[in-house]
């Protein structure tokens, strides 16, 4: 489920920001509020929506994170995380219910696209001696916010609870594929 973080960034860009090119340099009519994103650590992070150039940079950051995947948290890029929570997702979610970090690493990522579908693929390896059961997946964007200099933090853009849990046996890998379809 797409989170409010994702919606706020998208909404602000579509409806509160009309400048992206040099020949369109005029402010839109709604430019006074500061939507607040919530990072996966729970911090409230206001977008400086009063500054069109800051907002533009934030948008580029968020946009890039949907275009280019990383194996882990990297400024301006997106990455996939796994967890063991089972609570039904809501738009208010800002983190996984229970992110798995022990003995789990992301080794390889790729991105592809056709006209209206973007596909994100990430391979996770279990370096431990016990199986890891995955029940939830998140897409995280390390997006900039605030006023210059922009500060980066990690924002959950989507949280999905799997209908069928995935088990990664000890010493083995499994590949997760996300599809963002319009």
């Amino acid at each position, binding site marked *: 489920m797409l989170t409010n973080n994702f919606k706020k960034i998208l909404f602000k860009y*579509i409806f509160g920001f009309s400048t*992206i090119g040099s020949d*369109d340099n005029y402010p839109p009519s709604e430019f006074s509020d500061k939507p607040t994103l919530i990072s996966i650590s729970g911090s409230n992070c206001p977008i400086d929506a009063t500054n069109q150039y800051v907002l533009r940079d934030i948008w*580029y950051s968020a946009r890039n994170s949907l275009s280019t995947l990383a194996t882990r948290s990297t400024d301006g890029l997106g990455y996939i995380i796994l967890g063991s929570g089972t609570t039904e997702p809501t738009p208010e979610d800002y983190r996984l219910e229970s992110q798995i970090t022990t003995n789990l690493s992301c080794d390889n990522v790729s991105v592809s696209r056709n*006209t209206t579908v973007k596909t994100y693929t990430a391979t996770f390896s279990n370096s431990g001696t016990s199986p890891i059961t995955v029940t939830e997946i998140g897409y995280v964007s390390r997006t900039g916010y605030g006023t210059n200099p922009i500060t980066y933090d990690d924002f959950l853009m989507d949280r999905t609870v799997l209908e069928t849990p995935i088990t990664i046996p000890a010493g083995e890998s499994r590949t997760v594929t996300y599809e*963002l379809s319009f």
Partner: protein
Amino acid sequence: MFTKNFKNLMVLNLLNANHGGTDMGTDTTTTPTYYTSSGKECSNIGNSNKLYVGLTSALSDTLKTNDYYSKSAHLIIGTGTGTISENDYCLFNEASNCTCVSAASSTTSNLTKSYTATFQNNSESDVTITETGIMGKLYIENGWYKVLLEHTLLETPVIIPAGGTRTITYVWSF
């Protein structure tokens, strides 16, 4: 229903970025095709950045009453019926005898945008409105064209009496 025109515009800028840069990315292997309100087929991805500028400007700024202004959007109404499709590029039958006499846009909450337009029936007969649309005027390929972004078939038709007016409000919630 959002049209394929709108989806293609969104996908181009959401999913096709150039990391760290301000231009469109290098993933240009698929070239979306746009259909203007007259059915003209356009597909020049080289103007995709401008296309998105046009889209955001059109949807951000104050709604217009007609298609005179570039980088703008206006509401349209029609009397046609049929099955709505994302491939629609015009209304089934735009009401030519009704004109928009005032229009405005506003944000009513953090994640809700509303558009309001008042139409006047200039004919001597009642007009039954069965469909509405959001039309953007965007730069595609080599000029400004009207591009249908959304098409809705009304569950309950609205009658505009002869010489009378009716106000339509679009609410766009995320």
